[in-house]
Structures are given as C-alpha cells and as structure tokens.
C-alpha cells in the first residue's frame, strides 16, 4: 500500500530527500470562447487556473472537487492529452511541455491513464486481449506471441483468467472491465498511473475491490498514482496526499489524514460535511453549501469561494450571526447579479390574498418582510446599525432603486474575501490552504468547531 512508503512532506517538499517524480507548476488550461467567422475571442473558460503540486515516487495523490472544478482537465492537460495554456510539468526532471511528438510518445509509455467509464473506454469490437495488447503494438512490440504472453500475465495479475483474453467487453461486468483497464495501463510497465474517477461508475462492493487491487498493484509495480475523484471517501481510503480543487484552483493541499481530520479551508469542511454518513442517527450536518459552482468563464473576484462560503469574513464594524451574515451576502450577490425581482415578490404576496387585490396594493413594509423571508433573513438583525443599513437598502430596493441598494450594501457590508485573493499558505505541518481567515489568523467560526467535534 502506498501509505507510509514515502515520508510525509508539505508542498515545498522540505522533508523529502528524493526528487518528485511529477512536478506541476502553474499549470493552466483556458478554453477560449470565440464568436463570429474570424473566431474572435470574447472570453475564456478558466478550467484550470494555475495549480502546483508534486507526486513523489510510490506515492498516491488525490485531486478532489465538485464537477466543473477542473480536476479532469488538470489530469488530461498534464500529460498533454490537451495542450496546457501555461505552466510547466516536470516528469523525472524533464519538462514535458517542451517535448516534441516522438519524445511525447516515449513519455506516454511511462505514464498511463485509466478512465471513469470502463464501458466506453474499450472498442466493443476488439477482444480484451487485443485491447490490452494494442498499446504494446503501438509502442513497437511486433512479436504477437510475446504480446499474448504479456496479456495473459497481466490478466492474471489483475485477478482475471487467461481465457478472458478472447472475450469481448460486453461479456464482462463493470468491475471486470475496470480490471482490464488496469491491465491495459500496466502493459507499458509505467512509472505512474493517472486514474480519472476510476471507480465512480462501479457499485460500492466492486469499488472497494478495485481500490484494493490498485493498492496491491502499486506495491508490486512501485507505481505512483494520481487519482481524480469527486468521492472523498475513495480519496481518503487510498491517498497519501490530497489536493482539494475549487473553480480551477487548489484551495487546500496536505496529507490525507490531516485534510480529512483537520480541514483548514471552509470549502473542504463543507465538502466533508456533505458526505452522507452511514449512520441514520446523524442526519444533516448543518453546513450546506448554497447554490451551484459559479461559471469558470467568469470566476468571482477575490477568493473564488466567497460566493458560497459559509465562513465568509464579516465587516469589522458590524456584528452578525455568521449564518445571517451569509444570507445577507446572498441577497447582496443576487442584487449585484440584477436578479432580485421586486414585482415578483409583490405578486407572490398578492396570490395569498383576496382575488380583488393587485400587486400595487401591497405595502412597502409587506414587500420588505417578504424579501427577508425569501432570503431567510430575520425580520430584525441583532446589530442595530447593521439593521438600519439593511433596512435602508431594502427601502431603496422597494422604491425601485436597486442601484442605490447595491451601492449601499457594497460600501457598508464589504468583506475582504471579495477583493483579496488568498494564497496557499502553510496552515499546519504538511498542510497548506488558501483562505484569508488563515492569512489574517482570524478565530475559527462556530461552523468550523462543529466539524472538528464530529
């Protein structure tokens, strides 16, 4: 098993004596958004936006995050299945981003990939044996009987029978196909395997079989593994170190045990809290992220997580309850997006009344009360000064002046999270995280303590 094979180290690799096998610096992949006949670039989808990490020999590193965070793009651009926009990828000391086609082909013998869907990663008209032998033929092993020997050996190593070589993909179950995927990756005797969601399409019992096989093979082949998954439980089970990605950036990086037991970034905490536990007495953990991941074509300013962060830093001048503060910020963000429809709110009030009434009959007070309800903001904030600011902003809004409301909230309820970008900083030994709370050494919120005590 990968665990314990290599000494623990932080990102800087200070505790390591050996050189990393894979060293990724400032890896960036942007997809241009073009329009018109001349493909004028009008914007960019920042799928991966400058990530740094290392993978040491014999180590298993996991990248985890929600869909759309750029984890799969990171994997495919670091072995140049897609050309990275920027950044360097050093493999065994050499910068592979400068490789020409011939060098790249040689490099790809040493790094192999496994994909999520075992169904679609095989040619349905090619037998299992042919599929496993194909990379061998591509890389120049012309002796068919030798290829066959290798295929049989590999099949046995991944727990299948030699006779399976003549079967076709549709005859195998999902778990068996993923075993074949592993066998095919191993046919090149690689130094490293990149597994993109290798068990997401499998049943839980098969999942744990494949993970066990991967750790066994890692030991016997001395592999480094980079595993991409949205499933934190899988990552926790087999990884030595973990990188948590959000919107194209790594927000936390550390040893698996530290990241899972002592998460430093609010996003990591929220992710951990949303895993359903197999304990019916422990339902709902309290932290729930609101909304979806913002579009990577227009990522939020400052900390990219600030639009959803439950632990958003409060302005110095006011004292909010943290959850109320989050909801007030939700209102502010909706206003900034221009999507608060006061008329719709009035109509909503009217539908519950006498049919003779029209939206014009709804008083400003009622509209404001309904607005607070919509955003689950209490009818009165605890802090009287904050309350008067909010009330004034709602007045602006209801009287048909959303610009003034936006302005007021932006100046009064400003948070450093929306303007300053945090950098990855050492949080504890062997763990880095990018959060302004850590940079400014702010005390932990109640939310953080809830997770810790779990």
């Amino acid at each position: 098993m990968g665990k314990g094979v290599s000494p623990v180290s932080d990102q800087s690799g200070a505790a390591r004596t050996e050189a990393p096998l894979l060293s990724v610096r400032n890896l960036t992949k942007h997809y241009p958004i073009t329009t018109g006949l001349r493909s004028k670039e009008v914007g960019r989808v920042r799928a991966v936006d400058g990530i740094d990490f290392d993978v040491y020999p014999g180590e298993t590193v996991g990248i985890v995050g929600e869909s759309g965070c750029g984890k799969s793009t990171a994997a495919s651009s670091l072995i140049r299945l897609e050309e990275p926009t920027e950044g360097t990828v050093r493999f065994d000391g050499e910068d592979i981003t400068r490789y020409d086609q011939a060098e790249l082909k040689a490099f790809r013998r040493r790094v192999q990939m496994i994909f999520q869907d075992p169904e679609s990663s095989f040619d349905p008209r090619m037998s299992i044996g042919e599929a496993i032998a194909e990379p061998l033929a591509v890389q120049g092993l012309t002796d068919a009987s030798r290829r066959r020997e290798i295929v049989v050996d590999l099949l046995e190593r991944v727990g299948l029978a030699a006779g399976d070589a003549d079967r076709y993909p549709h005859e195998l179950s999902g778990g068996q196909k993923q075993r074949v995927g592993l066998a095919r990756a191993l046919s090149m005797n690689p130094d490293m395997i990149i597994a993109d969601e290798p068990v997401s399409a499998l049943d839980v019992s098969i999942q744990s079989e494949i993970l066990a096989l991967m750790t066994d093979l890692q030991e016997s082949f001395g592999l480094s593994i980079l595993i991409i998954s949205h499933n934190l439980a899988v990552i926790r089970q087999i990884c030595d170190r973990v990188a948590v990605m959000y919107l194209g950036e790594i927000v936390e990086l550390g040893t698996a045990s530290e990241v899972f037991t002592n998460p430093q970034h609010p996003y990591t905490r929220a992710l951990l809290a949303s895993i359903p536990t197999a304990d019916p007495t422990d339902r709902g953990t309290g932290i729930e992220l609101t909304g979806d991941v913002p579009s990577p074509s227009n990522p939020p300013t400052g900390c990219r997580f600030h639009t959803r962060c439950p632990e958003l830093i409060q302005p110095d001048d006011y004292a909010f309850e943290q959850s109320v503060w989050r909801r007030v910020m939700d209102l502010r963000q909706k206003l900034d997006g221009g999507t608060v429809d006061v008329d719709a709110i009035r109509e909503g009030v009217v539908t519950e009344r006498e049919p003779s009434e029209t939206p014009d009959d709804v008083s400003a007070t009622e509209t404001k009360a309904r607005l607070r309800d919509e955003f689950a903001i209490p009818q009165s904030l605890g802090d009287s000064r904050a309350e008067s600011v909010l009330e004034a902003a709602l007045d602006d809004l209801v009287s048909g002046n959303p610009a003034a409301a936006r302005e007021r909230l932006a100046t009064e309820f400003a948070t450093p999270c929306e303007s300053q970008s945090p950098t990855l900083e050492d949080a504890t030994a062997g763990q880095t995280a990018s959060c302004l709370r850590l940079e400014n050494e702010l005390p932990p919120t109640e939310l953080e303590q809830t997770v810790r005590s779990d």
Partner: protein
Amino acid sequence: MTTNRPDNTTHPPQTDQTPSIPTANDGSTATSRSTPASTINANARGNKTIVNSNTSTDSPAHDSTAAEASSDAKTDEMLLTVENLKTVFDTDDGTVHAVDGIDFTVQRGETVCIVGESGSGKTVTSESITQLFKSPPGSIADGSVVFDGIDLASRTEDELTDIRGARISHIFQNPQGALNPVYTVGWQLIEAIQLHRNVDDDAAREDAVDLLNRVGIPEASSRLDDYPHELSGGMKQRVMIAMALACQPDLLIADEPTTALDVTIQAQILTLLRELQADFGMSIVFITHDLGVVAEIADRVVVMYAGKVMERGSVYDVFESPSHPYTKALLECLPGRGSLGGIPGSLPDPTAPPTGCRFADRCPYAVEECTVGEQPVFESVGGEARDEDIEHEVSCVHYRSAADPSVLDQLDADRSSVPQERPSGRTVGTRDGEGGVARE
C-alpha cells in the same frame, strides 16, 4: 415476539366474518379515490390466492387475530403493498428472473429505501410498480402490487396511464436524459400539468412557476424559458422533481436521483425531498446503492440481492444491527469502514437462480442448509427494535427459531483472530520479479 409470525405486509386470507378489517387482499379496500374498475379487479384477484411464499400458509390461525388487531390501524396508512412480486424478462438466453418474489410495504408519508448492488433487481422493482419496463420482453409473472386498494399488476395500459404521473410519479437518475433537449423546461413542465389536469395555459404556467419556486429554483419565471442545457445538473434534477410533483402524487418513486450529482448538490436535493415530503405528505420509494444516502433519508430499508429481499426493517435497526450477511458485507464495503476487498464472487446467473439462499455462494457464514430449498423464510431478528411499528426481519437460516444467530458473531471473532487473508475469490497475483512484465 414470536418468530413465526407472518410479517406485517401479509395478512391471512380474509373471511366473511371480518369484513370490517380492510386489508390489501380484500376487496373491501375500496377507498374514496379508487375507481369503479377496482371492483372488477378485486373479483379477478379473488381467484388468485396471494400468499407470501416466504411466510407460507402454515401461520397459526390464533396468531393471526393478534396480527390483524395490531395491523388494523395500520392498513389504512398502507399506501403500497407489494406481495410476492415476480418480474421476468424473456431473452434469447432464457428467462431472466429480475425480481423473484419480493414483499414490501410503504405507509403513507414514509420513505422506503430499496438498496442493493447493480443487478439486484431494485430498479426493475421500482419499474414494476407502474409497469414502466418494456413489455415484451418484460412481464409480471406473479404477485400483486396493491396501491391504495388498486391492484396495479392486473391493470390495463390505459388504466395505468391514468395513475402514472398523476398518483405515482417517477424521477430518474440522469436528469439530462429525462428532459427533452429541444423544448424549454417550462414547456415540458406545463405539458406535465395539462396532461393530468384540465387547466388553461395561463393557469398551468402559474402552477409551473409555483412548482419551480417550491423546488428551490431561483427566478423561476425566467427559468421557464430556459432549455435543459442551460441548467446545471442539480437544477435539472430540481426541474424533474417539480415535474413529478405537478399532480401532487401520493407516491414518488425516485430511482437513484442523486447518483449523478456532486456530494454538495446531493445534500441539497436530499434536504429538498425531505421538505417536500413533509409538505405534501407523500410517500417516497427511494432506490439507491449508496448506504450513506439510505442512512440520510430512509424510514424503512429493504435490502435486495439477486431479485430477493435479504433483510428489511427500520433504518435504525438495519444500520445498528445489520443481520443478514449480505447487509453486513455491504456495510463493510463502505470506504473507511472495515477492510478493502469488496464482496468476493459475483451475482448468480439471473436466468438460472441457485436453490437455497441466493447469497450462499458468496456468504462467509454459509452452511450446507443454505444451498437447498427456497430462499429462507423471513425471521424476526428480535432484540430491541428502535421503531416498534417496523419489524426487523431477515431471510437467513442462522436466524431460524431453532438456530442461534450469535454464531455469526462467533465466526466474526474467529476470523479476526486469525491473520486476515484478503477475502477475495480472485487473488491478485503476487509473482516475484516485480516490473519487467512488459519491458523488453
């Protein structure tokens, strides 16, 4: 608690002396919402004696009185009663016994999770309720699905169409595939509303906005004109839920509704389902392979394996004292719980299911008895039940009245004392001379 008692779902055939007790087997179950056709149906059903194969007919008569008395109040709440359901598919390779005689019940307002690996028949079970599977090749070979007094298994296609969507709604795993990409979500939602209710376009549109609001889609009125591809996966699943709620169904069947979603979005959808259930008072049949999700949402759990029910009980009982070896193994597979390695072996051939317990082949506790006869009858697990209304039952020979289930714990202890071998039928080759497999 007697171990020989028939389970709550199976009532002894009713006699004329007890007409006041409406049960699923009884024609008198006609409720305010049942159609005239249900009377015909009840007659048809009368010819077919429905007896739970697992509990067999030898249940003592004197015991049944007590059972009836206790279940008297409950049968009114029973929304769905599935008895001895068998669904088969005729294929070129033989008849696939996808669901092979299962029983479970759903009360009003409760959430029942059907859990199992792929191929265990859980999806076919959910499709059998309203016969969504393609027929032929699929057909219900035996058994009854009684929904609010109506036996759905013997209904015609037209009659089922009236029930589908109106009283029983489905949501599916992949919201992308369930929405039509060339129509706006509003169009599709309004279609669903107008299909079952006679309302004009404006009223339907208003209802659609309300529904989208209800499922937590912001700016609902402008979202109506969006196409499915403009929404995120979580939003699409919310639209699907809105569509399913269009006619305020009594039963919502959710087949892996969160499997395709991120864990953060999954948490949102589960919370939403719980809220909606509280508001609408509907029952939910929730199909999933994720035990974490089960623990999060279920009231009652049905563990399926190879077309049979292995264990059923309240969510607390099943998680606190998993009793069937299969349930135990499934829980052990959860990452971070127990050892890596999965459940050795694979599902039995569904065209020729083995005799005895379906799981015997892969079961570490299997004894000779396990491989003969039928799937063992349900036995009460006993012990302190967390929810007294839901019996915790298991189909395993080790729980027979004469047998001592503590043998399982004993075996567990024995095995943990000897050096653990990877419990895998397929061993991973550990040949010497690592590397060099392929390198020339």
